[in-house]
């Protein structure tokens, strides 16, 4: 048994003169939620379509659970595309049954599982409604059910929360986490960085057809740390402190001064080789420290920084 559910190695995909994927390699560990990030048109959808065998790579290999990706794996993948919809004039139940059967479930099996999921999401009474009678969010729920219905090992969600109100988005988020806990591996592509922070164990960043970043969320953040600390001090002369800080070789990053009563807040960047304790010790000598916290870059910051660096 492979450790990674999915292993893409040196994948190329070209459309005519345009290269959509340029030597992309990705490893997606079993049981993880993997954030596939990148600007619009970076090549995420091309990669996802290759995983779904909608298109095929021009070069490179893709292993699914240690085996070369083959048509038989389609039944083990659930895909919720970004551009998604349903047959407008078909009834909900009929349509869900049809899509489930296309994934290889028998009719009775499909019915059983659909009943379970429809009850779970409390949408059982929609069974005989036509899609055109439902709202967009309702239709999205049905698409979600159809994606996860056949208990796939790999779930691919492309912008799963678009079209949901916050309550339903939360509901879906909990379902995704529950599926992960039950052993599913999830590829999650989105532009909503806060949900990446919340859900993902690993991320990869694709820009202009190239993978520019990959790793666990923690590692990536560590790699992008700026050694900047947010501190709050009490009973201190700002001007004296500032010159002292500079003379110690620390840098006051951004002009982020903030005085709350007797308290003075600022952010200080220290050289990479300096340990944070040194800064703390230095500050403690000058005043009483009421707040000391490392400023960890958000995924949003990392995204912007990495893409800008790569484009430059």
């Amino acid at each position, binding site marked *: 048994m492979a450790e990674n559910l999915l292993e893409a190695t040196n994948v190329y995909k070209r*459309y*005519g003169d345009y290269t959509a994927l340029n030597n992309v390699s990705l490893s997606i560990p079993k049981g993880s939620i993997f954030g596939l990030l990148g600007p619009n048109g970076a090549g995420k959808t091309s990669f996802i*379509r290759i995983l*779904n*065998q*909608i*298109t095929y790579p021009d070069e490179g290999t893709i292993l699914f659970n240690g085996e070369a990706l083959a*048509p038989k794996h*389609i*039944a083990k*993948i659930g*895909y*919720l*595309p970004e*551009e*998604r*919809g*349903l*047959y*407008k*004039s*078909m009834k909900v139940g009929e349509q869900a049954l*049809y*899509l489930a*059967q*296309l*994934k*290889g479930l028998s*009719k009775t099996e499909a019915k059983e599982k659909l009943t379970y999921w429809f009850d779970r999401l409390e949408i059982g009474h929609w069974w005989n409604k036509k899609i055109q009678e439902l709202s967009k969010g309702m239709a999205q729920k049905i*698409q979600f059910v*159809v994606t996860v219905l056949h208990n796939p090992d790999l779930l691919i969600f492309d912008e799963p929360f678009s079209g949901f109100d916050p309550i339903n988005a939360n509901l879906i988020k909990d379902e995704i986490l529950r599926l992960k806990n039950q052993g599913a591996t999830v590829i999650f592509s989105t532009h909503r960085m806060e949900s990446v922070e919340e859900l993902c164990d690993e991320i990869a960043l694709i820009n202009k057809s190239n993978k520019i970043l990959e790793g666990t969320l923690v590692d990536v953040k560590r790699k992008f740390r700026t050694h900047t600390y947010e501190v709050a001090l009490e009973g201190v002369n700002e001007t004296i402190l500032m010159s002292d800080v500079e003379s110690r070789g620390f840098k006051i990053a951004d002009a982020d001064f903030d005085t709350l009563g007797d308290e003075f807040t600022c952010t200080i960047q220290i050289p990479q080789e300096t340990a944070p304790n040194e800064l703390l010790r230095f500050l403690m000598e000058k005043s009483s420290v009421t707040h000391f916290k490392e400023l960890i870059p958000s995924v949003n910051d990392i995204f912007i920084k990495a893409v800008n660096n790569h484009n430059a």
Partner: protein
Amino acid sequence: MSQLLLIIKREYLQKVRNKSFIIMTFLSPLIFTGLIVLVAYLSKINNAEKQVISVYDETGLYANDFEGYENYEFDYVSTEKEFAQVTSQVVSSEKYGLLYIPNEPVTKLKDDVVFFAEDAPNMDVINYITEVLENKAFESNLKNDGVSVEDIHKASTSVNIKIENFNGEESSKTANILKLVFGGAAGYFLMMFIIIYGNMIMRSVIEEKTNRIIEIIISSVKPIKLMMGKIIGTSLAGITQFVVWLCIGVVLSVVVSTIFHVDLSTVETPHKAMLENSGAMEAMVQDGVIEFFKLPLLTLIVSFLIYFIGGYLLYSSVYVSIGAAVDSETDTQQFMMPVIMVLMLAVYVGFFTVINNPHGTIATVFSFIPFTSPIVMLMRIPFGVDLWEIVVSVIILYLTFVGVVWLAAKIYRIGILMYGKKPSYKELYKWLKY
């Protein structure tokens, strides 16, 4: 159940359950029969109306010659009255027309007879009058030369040429007409079927694109399976519709002709009335039935099915790729034009060259070209086409079909995931190479 079957089943049920499809299926034969009944009824009324033609015969020689023609009656006016007076009478009494025969010897009339009428007269009546006048002159000339009419009748013989091919199979004019009708109907039917149901398939492809369900489906199904499922499912729906139309049509025509006592056959051929009088109509019907059973029916039916399926599948793959390439039905025009033009070309070649010369060069060539062969060959087959020709043409057709499906599948695979802009022919060509 296999994926292909699932897709076929869904496509079929979706089409057949569609309200407008059901309405079309059951309403069109009613409308169609309604129209025929209306036309038959109107022409009956039209024919029932008596039309009177006044005859101003200065010679007095034609007193009993104009006996009447269809619903036209002839009324001899006394020549004691002035011609001008008669004219005004005819006009005021709203008669159909006035025939003026000047006082000249029957053989010298030539350009002097005049027919006055308010509106342009029915040409059949004019022909009838001309015939009567000419016969009179003919008989009169004979009489002057001392030959009696009886002698002429005795002297003339009617010859009926039998037409046979070298295998000793007889053919006749009726048979030729029958063959034309058969071939023409088959070719025309195929064209209509392609246009109606090809469009339907195209629309269902576009629907999946605009619904954005396509990516969900092709993540479980190979595009070519989806494509074939759509083609087959829609065709089955089409065949269902045609069968229903046929059944309703037969039932309705029986019902209508018994209830309304409208002889539907009078609609097409006004001359039947004449033939009926002489019993020729019955002879022709008998002849027709005999000739019908002389046609190579089995060959006709088998070749019809082969060409129908091949031609329909060929064109539907083209329609599918058009649907996949565009975003909405309004964008299809540019790609539909060539398809419709080829179909029209096939039908025109069929109707103009096959009728004149079923085995001429043009008809033969077009019955080998795959996009026209189903229609043109179907029109030629009733006239007898060598087996090898049919076999070669069918092989070309089906090979082309395989090739076109392969190309269509490529365009389909790319096109269904392309949104936003209408591709040019150049881009379509590029897709083929992806």
